[in-house]
């Protein structure tokens, strides 16, 4: 009766994790080979949510294509939009009003926090602790409400346009964000109480999923995944864009190279994001929120590349323009895609339970990988 259970040549168990699996948070498919409980081989199988956004963008105008990027990494849609808007602006040399810059950075940092909150809850859920998810969503909900008031959406915002932002801020925005800062400051300590110090949690995280600094660079890991291995790769610091160079914040780097370091990086990043918003929220300059731009944008002939830091790592937007109204070729270098390639390296030799935990610390968003 057991013929149908697939085994590899040397009798190891082959298991399909996904595309429908509670731990993959989407439609990622991993083909893993198990020796007992130990993972000996892992092969990611992508494309279940591939929409060929790059191909679509070739038929869309420079105003339209930004909206497809909200659907890539839907947890940091503001930042994706920011990258596209920056590319178009740098190509056309549009000066954007300072008010728009401030709004963009505040929104980006709020997005980053919301994304990290969701990651925190989801990762705890992967580890079997179900309660943190609800605590994380309580805070995330207030961010979403703030977003909804100003942008009209809670997930795919489409708020940044070439030249600035689409609308002005909602009158309640500043007050609500300030309220949120006070609220979240106490809650982030609660996160630590709830999970970080837990002995079971630490045992599950420490010395698990190790990736050295050299390997992290070679695998192209970015974002908290690489910073947990001691790689300085925060684009906001090393290639500052927008108004980040004027701001006082630290690039969080941990040197543990393991899951716990990656966890710590994200936890500390939430505090850094709070710090950034605190600096900006009282000083949003008055004035225009959008620069005057032509109705139809035409990029000059050439190649344009922009790098921004999303919640998951480095997002690159590479536009090849032939001078038309739509890109000749567009490439999104998504952070999840490269981070995923390091998964096998991290997981090999660990137990299947650790696979889930490591995937949690990579913070993969599948539409971001598949595009």
């Amino acid at each position, binding site marked *: *009766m057991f013929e149908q259970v*697939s085994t590899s040549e040397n009798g190891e168990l082959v298991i399909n994790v996904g595309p429908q699996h509670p731990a993959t948070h989407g439609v990622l498919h991993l083909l893993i080979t198990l020796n007992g409980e130990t993972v000996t081989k892992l092969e990611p199988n992508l494309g279940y949510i591939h929409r060929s956004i790059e191909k679509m963008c070739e038929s869309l105008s420079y105003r339209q294509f930004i909206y497809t990027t909200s659907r890539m990494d839907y947890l940091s849609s503001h930042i994706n939009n920011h990258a596209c808007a920056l590319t178009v602006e740098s190509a056309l040399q549009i000066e954007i009003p300072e008010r728009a810059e401030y709004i963009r950075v505040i929104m980006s940092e709020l997005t980053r926090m919301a994304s990290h909150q969701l990651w925190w809850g989801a990762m705890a859920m992967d*580890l079997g*602790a179900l*309660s943190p998810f609800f605590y994380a969503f309580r805070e995330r909900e207030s961010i979403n409400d703030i977003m909804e008031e100003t942008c009209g959406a809670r997930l795919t915002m489409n708020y940044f346009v070439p030249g600035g932002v689409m609308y002005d801020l909602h009158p309640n925005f500043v007050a609500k964000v300030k309220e949120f800062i006070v609220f979240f400051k106490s809650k982030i300590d609660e996160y630590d109480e709830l999970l970080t110090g837990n002995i079971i949690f630490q045992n*599950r995280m420490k010395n698990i999923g190790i990736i050295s600094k050299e390997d992290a660079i070679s695998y192209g890991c970015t974002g908290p995944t690489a910073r947990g291995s001691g790689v300085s790769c925060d684009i906001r610091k090393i290639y500052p864009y927008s108004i980040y160079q004027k701001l006082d914040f630290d690039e969080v780097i941990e040197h543990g190279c393991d899951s716990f370091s990656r966890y710590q990086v994200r936890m500390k990043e939430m505090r850094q994001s709070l710090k950034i918003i605190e600096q900006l929220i009282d000083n949003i300059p008055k004035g225009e929120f959008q620069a005057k731009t032509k109705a139809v944008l035409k990029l000059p002939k050439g190649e344009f590349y922009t790098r921004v830091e999303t919640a998951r790592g480095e997002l690159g937007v590479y536009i090849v323009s032939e001078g038309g109204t739509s890109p000749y070729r567009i490439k999104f270098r998504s952070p999840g895609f490269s981070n995923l390639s390091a998964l096998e390296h991290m997981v090999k030799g660990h*137990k299947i339970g650790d696979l889930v935990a490591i995937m949690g610390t990579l913070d993969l968003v599948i539409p971001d990988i598949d595009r």
Partner: protein
Amino acid sequence: MLRLENISSFIHTSLSNHLSETSVLLLEMTIIALAAITLFALLGLILVLMERKVSAWIQIRLGPNRVGPKGIFQTAADTLKLVLKEGFVPDGADKFLYKLAPFVVMIIAMILLAPIAFAKNFAIWDLNIGVFFITAISSVSVIGILMAGWASNNQYSLLGAMRSGAQIISYEISAGMAILSIVVLTGSLQISDIVASQSNGWWLFKGHIPALIAFVIYIIAVTAETNRAPFDMAEAESELTGGFHTEYAGMRFALFFLAEYINIFIVCAIGATLFLGGWMPFHIGNWEAFNHIMDYIPSSIWFLSKTFFLIFVIMWFRWTFPRLRIDQLLQLEWKYLLPISLFNLLLITLIAIKGWHF
């Protein structure tokens, strides 16, 4: 005052007046079987609702609140849904074992209800090896789980079953040691004797620190034995999707689900009996008035409140801790709990021989 023992003796005497001894026995057995099944279903309903309410409370949400007042009929509605669902057998499964497994698990859970003293002089079968009976029978339930995992013809189920096998067999030892330490103190395996020995104080308080250690080990071990988080390796929904019951649906799944909760009830009932005095009321030294008031509360209430307190503790664990990894789980048992409980048993034996306990 209405006491459960009066009801049972009333039934017995009124039946004996009219019928022969054999038919009385047969009739009583039928009544007990019906009562046990009713209790089984009722406990399942209550415990599932309790779990959902407790988890909701811990997770800052409301929990079921639509079906009936405060959502109390939610589990009944869920059960109805599960009964109506198609119970299919996956292709390539071992049909006989696949269908048998939930019943094995359920029947074992029901057998375990037998020796438990629900109130003063009120147990289905107060046999003289009560505690031993429970330890012996409860370890059989792993067979049902292994059966389910093997017969499903699914890798996840198989892994879950294997984990569960390793886990239940390991933690049986610690649980057994903890139970044994109370047996050493009492000198009897009979549940009624163990409860009676606590009339002047619960073993948790009488047995000094070793009894406390035994209690803690017992709680950890039974949490693992019942496959509850943080030891829910057999299910581990984020790793193995559903563990041994991945392929089960409908009523067969419901039986696993119910059996899990009945097992929790049983282990907590045993814990309450051994360490918290079973149905014995809470007494404090010479506080006559206080003790008198405590005596006035029916023994069944005492028993149930202690049991449900322990159940609450186990639920609290589930909604607070992350899951252990399988090797950490076995490490915890074989490297820490087992040596500690062995040493603890030695201490308890010393206390029992020297008569140091109160």
